[in-house]
């Protein structure tokens, strides 16, 4: 207690010193922050100046001020709105599916009494999260391929379920289901980490009380475990809602020109408009990026606000 008092009184003393002196006293810290400062300025802030290109026609040959032209054409660009809609649909459905799966899996892992089995299972289901999207996509591309070594097609054929190979990744109506399944395979396990942490914090007395009331196993899950998770579920949804527009690599490694209608998301659209076009107009694609940054930033702030309401601290 006395120590704490000393600490605050010395604090007050420091506050009393003039600002210049306090800054001088902390010069070591500013020096240590300098590399971070320079780094962030170059890698994050310098590109922010580049948003001015969205008001220019910027190609290899010319740079010409065009005002709001790009934003006008952006709102008329049908492909852009398809990609915008796809981004929202893909990431929100993916988020709901993986969260639901993670919750169910963690509730039932929590019911396992054998600690060794529990640990082994956790080790296994966390594994795919650490594999890159490229690896995941490569594995599933090979399994789903229409060649003679494609496991899924050949197995279905040998069982007589299908006559002709199905090109899963090139069919407009099959691409999304495959995308969701791959996401479930890769991320469900990792999603359980946060829910299991919450579950380990449940007061065991709640279960004992339920036992005394004669609750069955399923009743205990439904009336004790699931309510305990509700808050965490909301937090997880909020945290992930903030980044719904960021979807890029997971789609990029799995899609192809035949499924653009159902798979093209904003970032992949920006990518192919810039790098797969003969004469790219950096101005236009910067404008798309700016639109995405603004909507995304608003989402982050909104989710930050919601998070403060729900759990008393923001996500920032």
């Amino acid at each position, binding site marked *: 207690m006395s120590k704490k008092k000393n600490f605050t009184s010395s604090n007050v003393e420091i506050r009393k010193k003039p600002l210049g002196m306090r800054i001088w006293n902390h010069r070591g810290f500013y020096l240590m922050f300098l590399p971070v400062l320079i780094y962030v300025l170059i890698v994050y802030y310098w590109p922010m*100046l580049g*948003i001015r290109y969205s008001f220019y026609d910027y190609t290899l040959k010319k740079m010409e001020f065009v005002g709001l032209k790009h934003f006008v054409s952006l709102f008329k660009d049908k492909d852009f709105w398809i990609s915008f809609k796809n981004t929202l649909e893909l990431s929100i459905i993916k988020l709901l599916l993986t969260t639901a799966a993670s919750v169910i899996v963690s509730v039932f892992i929590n019911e396992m009494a054998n600690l060794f089995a529990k640990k082994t299972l956790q080790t296994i289901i966390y594994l795919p999260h650490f594999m*890159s*999207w490229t*690896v995941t996509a490569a594995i599933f591309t090979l399994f789903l391929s229409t060649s003679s070594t494609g*496991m899924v097609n*050949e197995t279905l054929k040998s069982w007589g379920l299908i006559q002709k190979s199905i090109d899963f990744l090139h069919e407009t109506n099959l691409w999304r289901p495959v995308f969701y399944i791959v996401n479930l395979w890769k991320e469900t396990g990792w999603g359980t980490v946060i829910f299991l942490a919450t579950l380990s914090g449940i007061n065991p007395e709640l279960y004992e009380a339920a036992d005394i009331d004669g609750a069955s196993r399923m009743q205990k899950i439904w009336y004790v475990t699931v309510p305990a998770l509700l808050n965490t579920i909301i937090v997880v949804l909020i945290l992930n809602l903030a980044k719904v527009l960021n979807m890029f690599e997971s789609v990029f490694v799995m899609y192809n020109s035949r499924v653009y209608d159902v798979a093209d998301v904003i970032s992949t659209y920006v990518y192919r408009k810039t790098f797969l076009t003969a004469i790219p107009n950096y101005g236009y694609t910067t404008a798309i990026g700016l639109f995405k940054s603004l909507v995304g930033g608003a989402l982050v702030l909104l989710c930050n606000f919601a998070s403060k309401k729900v759990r008393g601290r923001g996500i920032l």
Partner: protein
Amino acid sequence: MEKAKVVYKKPKTRIHVFDVVNYIVFILIALIIMLPLWKVLVDSFNAVGVYQFKLWPSQPTLDGYKTILTTAKLYRPFMNSLITTAIGTLLGLVMSTLGGYVLCQMELPGRELLVYFLLFTMIFSGGMIPEYLVMRQLHLTNNMWILVVKHGMNVYNLVLMRNFFEGIPASLFEAAKIDGCSPMGIFFKIVLPLSKAALASIGLMFAVTVWNDYSTVQIYISNRDQVNFQYILRVMVMDGDTPTTAYNVSQSTLYYAAIVMAILPFMLLYPFLQKYFVQGVNIGAVKE
């Protein structure tokens, strides 16, 4: 009496059935995750491509791996991946520890300003194209060091680091300061030695990010000498663009061997360091 007996017995039999079903379901889940990986591993050692699931390779061979380790177009990207991952992780740790340490100095004038300076980057960004144009100006396109530059700084990890540092008792800092230790001295002699667990966790997060990154390479690099292994894997498997020297081995063997190589470093570390892999998520929660 009779009634109480029935009530007591019933849940017991239910528990039994529940547990059996539960374990069966989880064995299935574990198999759904492991079987694809096992097939990848087995087929990487199998000289012929087969569609069936086999427990062991029918014609064992090491040709897939030999090809990768002897074809310059394949092993160079692997080396690029190793180098960029090592340097990127190191740089990432330096940045996040320095930044995190400074940000937990509560009496630092202008601390709030620095926090907002960093947090703003999480709300707004220039976007893919302006970032590309800046990196092109810095001559970092077509250069594998772009991977290090892109991932050497991560505000989220820096904040995690700060949260961890805040858990170190302030009395330790006070004592060192009284003993005449400089900020740098405190950082090296007290903060870092006490943060080994956080360094391991956050270091692994950086390493996984850099090693697994494919899109940065796709956007910034077209020179095949500078690409990383993820890029080569993608180009081989999805675009069917196999290096010409690799025709002495069956395609599927080579593809599956490449997949194994792309996961190998972390699969070797994972069983031993699982704690640190998972801990990263929870460091943020240490605060409060």
